[in-house]
């Protein structure tokens, strides 16, 4: 399916529509830039409908598929309310985003959109492609969206609803279902775009660098890994909260903790910590939503095989949760679904995390107050983009995206001399 100026077309019209896309977009650029308040109003109206359960038939199955709890969803939906989006706008572009102060020379400054944004969306979260377009709209851009393969149709549905609320948006939203293999078509779309927004794994990011023209800006939202860092004296309460975060997210989010680095060099201390955390995890897991039998079974088999391959592996497993102590200090993915690794990483080695570069995202820091500042600073210097309490998947209005502000990435400042 194709969405072109508010109309839905069959994929067979693709070539015809793409050939008149640039001309159409230039006409739109001739108009005054899109007012972010128009976008905010449209989102707010949609947000209220969501709160009114108007879209439950679409939303509830999605949450089920991705193991996202309804309260967590409500929490994230708040970001699309008027209040949420205004906060985002002001945090990312500044309170004075609409009337930037002049330079000393009297030069006027004004935010402009990059112009045309080409979004290459990933398939792992259904609502993400539409979300990416909304961010592009907030910065005032014309948005071309390439749907991920296997898109459920929700992106076109959501964006059509948005256009219904504010018909002026139809000139700013174009959706095509171009398969990733149609390189020539993708290049055509990239060629007319000022910015290319890429979501997905390294493969997607790498191929974007290949198809993008040299004079297009590439904005990458790649895959991330998050973890916890704990000192040996981390409190019972903090560890319980961390366990609860692990059970609630099942570790499937970029910001979910995969494992815990412990501030020690000593193997016996790390193992003792593993024992301690395992007992807490068992207790917390029992008190909340039940674990998934199949995922626990899958993890158990994986761990059993790991132990066959390395009989010295220190492994704790019961009641659907597992903790494994590993000798190395590498950042890695856990088996997820309540499987946690424990590794040693004394504070003077925190900087070794630097080699993970842009894969680093959140760290849940568990330590006493006296250590908090020094450890936070070390972690930030190593390259993480968020130091949180035990719940690293908490959502705050106005928080950055992997350490960046998307609206700034999608905007430019234009200076007008007196």
């Amino acid at each position, binding site marked *: 399916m194709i969405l072109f100026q508010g109309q839905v077309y069959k994929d067979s019209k693709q070539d015809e529509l793409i050939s008149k896309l640039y001309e159409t977009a230039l006409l739109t650029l001739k108009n005054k830039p899109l007012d972010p308040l128009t976008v905010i109003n449209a989102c707010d109206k949609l947000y209220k409908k969501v709160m009114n359960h108007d879209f439950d038939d679409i939303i509830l199955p999605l949450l089920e*598929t*991705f*193991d996202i709890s309804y309260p967590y969803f409500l929490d994230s939906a708040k970001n699309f309310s008027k209040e949420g989006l205004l906060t985002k706008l002001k945090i990312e572009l500044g309170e004075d985003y609409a009337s930037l102060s002049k330079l000393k020379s009297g030069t006027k400054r004004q935010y402009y959109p990059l112009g045309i944004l080409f979004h290459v969306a*990933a398939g*792992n979260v259904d609502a993400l492609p539409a979300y990416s377009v909304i961010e592009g709209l907030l910065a005032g851009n014309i948005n071309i969206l390439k749907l991920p393969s296997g898109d459920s149709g929700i992106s076109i549905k959501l964006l059509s609803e948005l256009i219904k609320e504010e018909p002026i948006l139809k000139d700013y939203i174009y959706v095509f279902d171009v398969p990733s293999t149609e390189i020539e078509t993708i290049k055509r779309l990239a060629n007319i775009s000022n910015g290319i927004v890429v979501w*997905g*794994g*390294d493969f997607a990011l790498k191929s974007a660098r290949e198809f993008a023209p040299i004079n297009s800006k590439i904005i990458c939202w*790649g*895959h*991330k*890994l*998050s973890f916890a860092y704990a000192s040996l004296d981390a409190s019972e309460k903090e560890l319980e909260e961390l366990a609860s975060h692990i059970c609630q997210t099942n*570790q*499937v*989010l*970029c910001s*979910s903790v*995969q494992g815990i680095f412990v501030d020690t060099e000593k193997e016996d201390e790390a193992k003792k910590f593993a024992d301690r955390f395992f007992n807490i995890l068992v207790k917390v897991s029992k008190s909340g939503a039940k674990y*998934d*039998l*199949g*995922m*626990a*079974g*899958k993890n*158990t*088999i*994986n761990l*059993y*095989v790991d132990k*066959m*391959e390395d*009989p010295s592996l220190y492994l704790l*497993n*019961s*009641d*659907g*949760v*597992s903790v494994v102590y590993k000798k190395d200090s*590498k*950042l*890695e*993915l856990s088996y*997820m*679904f309540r499987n946690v690794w424990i590794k040693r990483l004394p504070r003077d080695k925190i900087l070794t995390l630097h080699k*993970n570069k842009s*894969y680093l995202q959140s760290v849940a820091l568990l330590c006493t107050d006296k250590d908090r500042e020094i450890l936070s600073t070390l972690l930030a210097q190593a390259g993480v983009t968020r130091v949180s309490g035990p719940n690293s998947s908490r959502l705050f209005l106005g928080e950055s995206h992997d350490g960046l502000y998307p609206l700034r990435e999608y905007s430019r400042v234009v200076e007008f001399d007196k």
Partner: protein
Amino acid sequence: MLYTNKLFRKRDIYNHLKYEALFFKAIKENCLYLYKHCAEYKKILDDKYFNINRDLKSVDDISKIPFIPTLYLKRHKLTTIKHKSLITVTSSGTSSRNKSEIDFNLGFLLRAWNMTRRVAKYHKLWSIKPTRYLILGYKPNKKNPAAVTKTAFAATFFAPGISRTYAIDYVNGEYKVDLDKLKNKLVKFAKGRLPVRTMGFPAYTYFLLKQMKDEGIKVKLPKGSKIMLGGGWKQFYAEKVDKEEFYKLAEEVLGVNDKNIVEFFGAVEHPILYTDCREHHFHVPIYSKIIIRDVSTLEPLEEGKIGLINLITPIASSSPLVSIMTDDLGVLHSSCKCGEKGQYLEIIGRVGIKDIVTCAQGAEEMLKQ
């Protein structure tokens, strides 16, 4: 393999009580043989401090034999055969990384033949009537060592086949599914007098029946026709239908009563032929034992509880398949209405279906490179 060969010659194929002692002896014999002839297997038992003569004293100890997950067999080839094996079979994984490759020898083939003979007899699958076969699976070819292909082909010998039609052809180096061809054949064969037997994946059979129903095609296959199912639901778990619905559809579209629908279950890593009874339950034959284990602690669970399916059989001396952990969830029941006293297995499904690619997972894959 004295005891094992003896076990596979027994006629009373569901009478566990009668052959319990023999089964135990066969298992112990198999363990000792594998320990002696397969260095990797020896290491696995030694790592788990399992001493066969000390720890395997009675049938109750069988659950203590260290099991090998099918996942491990996909990563490591374990064999007792020093030179070229008679046949090598792979499981039906989609890439070379997730397939197990298992060697089999002549002794295995003889035992398997004895087993198949008895099972087919018990379930009345033999027939001397010439039969038309429709296979909803792969056409065998030299490049496809997958067990399902061989099983499907083997199943066409229960009755003399006068024709064989395949749903998946091997055209220009790739597989092509052609359900239309089968549909047309079914309509044609329904007008004849020779019985028809279909054999293949349940999912394909279901799609075929559904397609026929949607198109308003209804036929009555000749008397003696059977629908045979095997190979599991594979990637079609989401489409998994209620068995009752499946039987109703078969009756409606092909005029085949559920008494003439038979399903098989087995695996390359556990090559035992499970055949459903008239209540459509998979009873455990005397050649094997099933233990359901806790998904976390791996301790054996009592009947009626869901857990990981651990399959035990002495059938193979060519490869350590004595105790295999599958990645399926299942539950054991007893007191089936069909009258067999032994336990039967209900397969719940593959573990880890929620295997979605998350953003964190993507980063990990890259870090490994």
